[in-house]
């Protein structure tokens, strides 16, 4: 297998609406920053992967065509990845595949979502459901994930206080991240008293909707070693797709809706490739795609950080806080910024920054191995990527 490393990352500042730039300029900001960090120019790129989720957000069909120049794709092979919320994670995996194939040495993955163009993100996300049978039930991502929370509470006894602890941690972490959208100093009580969106998810359990872009440069072994003093090596990747029907996720004996079976499978595949047997010990830091606090708790188990049903305890013990021994989402995570199609790539970029030792105020000391995950559809598509300091 060919070795692949991340040698540069770029992010925009995330905000509800970036009125100062158009969509191309937003991408350019992230792409330029990633090229700068990698110390290369667009001429050095062999291919481009464009990643963006529903174009209903931008209101332009084929945004990859519209913004091809900003993504440095002109005259180069490029294609667009779209797997809903998992888009950024899938884009990173596609970039990895480009380099691992041996056909390309240096590849840019550029992800964007201009959620600010749409008056109501959840209204657009309602259009992911079947127009005849399901759309009219007012399904959206908040109530889909609330169903997962309810199932998890019922099965494992998770409390709203445990969910609130996750929100407090993530919003506090965001203060150390210059790119973060929301920086909130919250108490558990603030979270519990915040407006109920769809029980048990309350306003401060939820992610914002953000405008923003992210870009990552991946390189082959020889290029990475030549161009970067501290590349983040890709140790393992995995992806898995679940059923469309949420009710169909209750038939598996090992995993039901509470356990996020497809997520577990994606993570296990990545661990297998990376040779990780004891993630609780071997992973130094995790950037996971959890737009709602309940999903972070369920993800702890899927990541193998604790036994099934013990996720709530992990946050109570403070293990995943910045001062704990396995920090999760030092960036503030998705609860602090959610530029939907770019969010998964932000997780990868943040994990890479940790490995490169460039995460500044949010740096986890001595981070050696990091995992980044993404989730998309109505919790249907999952990706995982493990990055490490040492060449595999």
């Amino acid at each position, binding site marked *: *297998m*060919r070795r692949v490393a991340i040698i540069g990352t770029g992010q925009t500042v995330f905000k509800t609406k970036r009125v100062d730039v158009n969509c191309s300029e937003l991408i350019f900001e992230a792409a330029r920053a990633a090229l700068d960090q990698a110390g290369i120019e667009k001429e050095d790129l062999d291919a*481009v992967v464009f990643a963006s*989720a*529903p*174009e*209903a957000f931008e*209101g*332009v*069909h*084929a945004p*990859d*065509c*519209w*913004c*091809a*120049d900003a993504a440095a*794709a*002109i*005259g*180069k*092979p*490029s*294609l*667009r*990845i*779209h*797997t*809903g919320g998992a888009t950024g994670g*899938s884009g990173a*995996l*596609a970039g*990895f*595949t480009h380099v*691992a*194939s*041996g*056909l390309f040495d240096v590849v840019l993955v550029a992800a964007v979502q201009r959620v600010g163009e749409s008056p109501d993100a959840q209204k*657009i996300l309602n*259009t*992911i*459901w079947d*127009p005849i049978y399901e759309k009219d039930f007012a399904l959206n991502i908040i109530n889909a994930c609330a169903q997962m929370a309810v199932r998890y509470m019922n099965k494992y006894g998770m409390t709203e206080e445990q969910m609130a602890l996750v929100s407090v941690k993530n919003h506090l972490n965001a203060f150390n991240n210059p790119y973060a959208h929301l920086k909130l100093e919250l108490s558990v009580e603030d979270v519990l008293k915040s407006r109920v969106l769809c029980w048990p998810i309350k306003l401060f359990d939820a992610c914002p909707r953000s405008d923003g872009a992210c870009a990552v440069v991946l390189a082959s072994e020889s290029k990475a070693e030549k161009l970067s003093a501290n590349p983040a090596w890709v140790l393992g*990747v*995995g*992806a*898995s*797709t*679940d*059923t*469309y029907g949420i009710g169909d996720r209750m038939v598996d004996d090992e995993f039901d809706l509470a356990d996020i*079976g497809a997520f577990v*499978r*994606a993570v296990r*595949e990545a661990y297998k490739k990376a040779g990780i047997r004891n993630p609780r010990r071997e992973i130094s830091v995790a950037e996971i795609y959890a737009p709602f606090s309940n999903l972070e708790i369920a993800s702890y188990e899927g990541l193998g950080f604790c036994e099934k049903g013990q996720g709530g305890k992990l946050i109570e013990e403070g293990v995943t806080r910045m001062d704990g021994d396995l920090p999760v989402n030092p960036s503030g995570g998705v609860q602090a910024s959610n530029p939907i199609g770019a969010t998964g790539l932000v997780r990868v970029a943040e994990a890479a920054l940790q490995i490169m030792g460039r995460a500044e105020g949010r740096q986890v000391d001595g981070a050696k191995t990091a995992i980044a995950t993404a989730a*998309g*559809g*109505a919790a*249907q*598509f999952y990706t995982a990527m493990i990055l490490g300091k040492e060449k595999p």
Partner: protein
Amino acid sequence: MSEKVALVGVGMTKLEPQKHETLYDMIFEAASLALADAGMERKDLESVVLAASDLVDGVSISSMVTATAAGAYLKDEIKVADDGMFGLAMAYLRIRSGHFSNSIVVGWSKCSQGSIDKITSLNFDPFYHRPFALNLVTTSALQATRYADRYGVSEEEAARVVVENRKNALGNPYACLRSEVAIDEVLSSRMLASPLKEMDLSNFCDGACALVLAKEDQARSLTDTPVWIRGLGWSTGTYYLGDQELAELQSLREAGQKAYAMAGIKAPAEEIDLAEVYDLTSYHQLMALEALDFCPSGHGGKFFAEGSLPINPSGGLISSNPYFASGLIRAAEGALQVGGRAEGRQVPQAELALAHGVSGLCYQKNCVVVLGR
């Protein structure tokens, strides 16, 4: 480690003006046929690549509904929001990476569900271009006008493409339009946007296509007649119409050159036995022949009239254009030809075939594959 990748299974639905099956039934049909053709079962699949457009499907994140119909349940699946040929490229890269020994790629569109004019007008930015009534037809007409003006291409030369492609479709049981037309009928068909008349434009319809790819050892154990991917290339052009010479399909030229370089092809017109090119309109078929170096620029009409190279024996998009599946169908047709399985549309001694897919308007993104025995 062998770097050879083969196409080992082909599956296609019939291409029809308005299919009554749901999107997932269509996709299930194509994927099942491709797996059966490869002699594989779903459990043998390691990777699933999907290719489609949310806007054409009328659902945001349409792969939510369609992924499992393509066999993706608990598999490593990814969706490319491009023409299916780019999905083929993604599947190829996945196998070449050594992380997968096989992959299915599935593309589809159900054009009967919406208006292609309205959907493609959304390709343009809302402020500066959309108000000009730009869409797939009008921008294709601008391109055709420029091409005709630059090289003196007559409406009759273009119409001959329609006559030939429609005639070829008679031999293709999957084709949507299966009737011959006379050149006068093409010329007198309804004007859409000068110089494009209704019959010059490809025939938007419903359909799905699936291909199974496998690495060398697996391909050889599955079939005695694998069709090898000899060359593959894709490239991206500029978006703004004023930034490009519309008469030259620059990104197709680049894609073709990459594919030829990989396949070791120096003289395409002599070495390639047949081409399935993306004939969005009759004019575009001629432009594509030039950009693919089958003939010099401006000689597309002459080269086509000579008839030395079988072009679009399937009948092309002019007979059937299930939008995002159309490039993948070109590859499927190429595989059937090289495998000697193209029945009524078989080109004799087809050993090397070229297939071509397009994403974006005015051929902004092109992907070319060369398939060989």
